[in-house]
């Protein structure tokens, strides 16, 4: 069996079509033969009725009662009749003095039985050959008479039957082939048309995987709806499991943070941790927790990846928040983001990326931070430029690696930029760091436009 669905359907439909065509062909040919033979039989039976008039009730034969009419008078025409009884034998002119018709045992009845069978009062069919070896079809009738049974046989050439059959065969085959071709085309069309929902479904599943849609939205065909419902349930279950996994990671991380904070506080008490060894371990745990929390966030885009998230509103909120976090660093943030720009990105993930970049900008800036955004093809490019001292080319590449922070004095865990880059790439975007015209760092993040 072929592995593909269309292959299977094609094979079964083709086989069924061939069988149906063969059956139809043989059936029609058989019907035709019976019809033609029926015509021949009627003609032969009429001849038998004519010949039977030559039998007198006492069993003797009236040789003058039968007059041969064409084609029974024509020698070797294949048309003949014979009357045989105790009173003698009477033959058609076509037979001349030749032997009577020999039944063809190949076609009718077993050989040991009288080929003409018992008397039934009605003519019976048989097939045989005439004295010239020509194949003939005949009818035989047994009549009771005063001097025993009389047998009357009439035969006609089988050619009479076969000629119209041969003539009909070509058009019959032609029309059957035509029918077959039409049905084959119908099967192909049906396969394409009938299987199209499957292709549509596959595209939808791809879109779900790519985050372009959340569920399969097929409303037809009805046969596929249970599958669509089952798939949607699976997607939901998957989403819930993902959210739970995220939740577990977050809970674990958050749950660790409070005891870590208490531990850190405890160790900071005078004399508690003289060498600072324990504090360093706490610091390590904290870094791991932050790192894996960030990774868990970056590895799994949140619930609504297809959401259109307005860039401007999120930049405004983050700038307001950062202005308060860095309240004692008077950095002026200039936001030049067109209000209609939106990205296809989960709002929380956008906050995470922009928050990290803005936070860095705030730390590096001398007095001003410029946030601009523009649409470039299918992407939105958001640039955050500070007027700080900038970075050397080596450092620009290095800060994108996990856990690297250039200034150990500045508070921060050094994962912000690498996580931002991972998140951006997860959405099919990019993060680039560069040195701007004014010498400061320009962080540019490109995300798919919505």
């Amino acid at each position, binding site marked *: 069996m072929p592995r593909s669905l269309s292959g299977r359907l094609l094979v079964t439909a083709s086989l069924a079509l061939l069988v149906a065509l063969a059956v139809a062909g043989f059936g029609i040919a058989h019907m035709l033969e019976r019809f033609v033979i029926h015509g021949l039989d009627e003609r032969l039976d009429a001849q038998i009725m004519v010949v039977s008039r030559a039998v007198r009730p006492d069993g003797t034969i009236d040789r003058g009662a039968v007059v041969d009419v064409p084609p029974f008078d024509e020698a070797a025409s294949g048309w003949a009749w014979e009357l045989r009884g105790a009173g003698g034998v009477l033959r058609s002119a076509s037979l001349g003095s030749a032997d009577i018709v020999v039944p063809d045992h190949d076609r009718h009845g077993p050989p040991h039985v009288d080929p003409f069978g018992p008397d039934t009062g009605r003519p019976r069919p048989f097939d045989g050959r005439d004295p010239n070896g020509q194949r003939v079809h005949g009818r035989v009738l047994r009549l009771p008479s005063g001097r025993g049974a009389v047998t009357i046989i009439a035969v006609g050439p089988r050619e009479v039957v076969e000629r119209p059959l041969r003539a009909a065969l070509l058009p019959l085959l032609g029309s059957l082939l035509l029918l077959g071709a039409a049905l084959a085309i119908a099967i192909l069309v049906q396969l394409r048309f009938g299987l199209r929902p499957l292709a549509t479904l596959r595209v939808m599943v791809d879109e779900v995987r790519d985050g372009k849609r959340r569920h399969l939205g097929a409303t037809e065909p009805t046969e596929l709806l249970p599958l669509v419902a089952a798939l949607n349930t699976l997607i939901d279950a998957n989403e819930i499991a993902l959210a739970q996994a995220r939740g577990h990671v977050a809970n674990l991380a958050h749950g660790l943070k409070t005891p870590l904070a208490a531990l850190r506080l405890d160790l900071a008490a005078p004399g508690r941790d003289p060498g600072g060894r324990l504090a360093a371990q706490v610091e390590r745990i904290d870094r791991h927790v932050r790192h894996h929390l960030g990774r868990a966030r970056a590895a799994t885009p949140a619930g609504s990846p297809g959401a259109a998230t307005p860039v401007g509103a999120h930049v405004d909120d983050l700038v307001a928040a950062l202005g308060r976090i860095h309240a004692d660093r008077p950095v002026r943030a200039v936001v030049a983001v067109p209000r209609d720009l939106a990205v296809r990105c989960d709002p*929380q993930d956008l906050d995470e990326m922009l928050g990290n970049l803005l936070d860095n900008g705030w730390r590096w800036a001398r007095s001003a931070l410029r946030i601009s955004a523009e649409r470039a093809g299918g992407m939105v490019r958001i640039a955050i430029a500070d007027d700080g001292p900038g970075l050397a080319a080596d450092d620009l590449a290095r800060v994108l690696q996990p856990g690297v922070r250039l200034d150990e004095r500045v508070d921060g865990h050094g994962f912000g930029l690498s996580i931002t880059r991972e998140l951006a790439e997860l959405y099919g975007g990019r993060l680039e760091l560069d040195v701007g015209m004014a010498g400061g760092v320009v962080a540019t993040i490109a995300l798919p436009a919505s």
Partner: protein
Amino acid sequence: MRVLVVEDDPALADGIARALRAEHFAVDVATNGEDGGHLGGTEAYDVAVLDLGLPRRDGLSVLAEWRAAGRMLPVLILTARDAWTDKVLGFKAGADDYLVKPFRIEELVMRLRALVRRAAGHAASVIRAGALAFDAQTGQFEYEGLPLRLTAFEWRVLSCLMLRKGVVIERLDLLERVYEGDADVDSNSLEVIVGRLRRKIGATAIETVRGRGYRLVDPPCG
């Protein structure tokens, strides 16, 4: 300066309270959202440290309720939730600062001092009144260029007067910001503290406004 700490983890709450008291703050601790919300809504605090994941009531709703009721005390959110979206939500609910656990206690203290200073309307970290200088960042007082040694009560009274120098501060208001919630308040003790302060920074620096309260005299410069 009186701080409200709303934190459900007893070890952390205790550690924070101890560290803040060492820096002369008066500290009240609430270990659930309901108590914290009630204290912040009724008592006088200079600043509040608010955890978000609290039993009984979420920190954000506590904060939103304070703001809706017109309680404008500066609030620092201290939480394990480090996502930027959470920070934005915190600020939108009315927070003034946001610190993620685990944190360095120095940073918490510094941020609380800065919040109190900014809430009193001082942009610069050093506040001066005559020969007296108060570094609101470090919490250190200087008098005539020399460090001033103060007890916790003295520091609370003086920092309160200093942050609102030139303004009469009600006796009751001052008492509220000097004593922790569960302390036995002897109203005469305020006079004792002010008396000791006058001996340290000069008798005329703190003015008694009869029937109302006290005022730190802010002589014009030069």
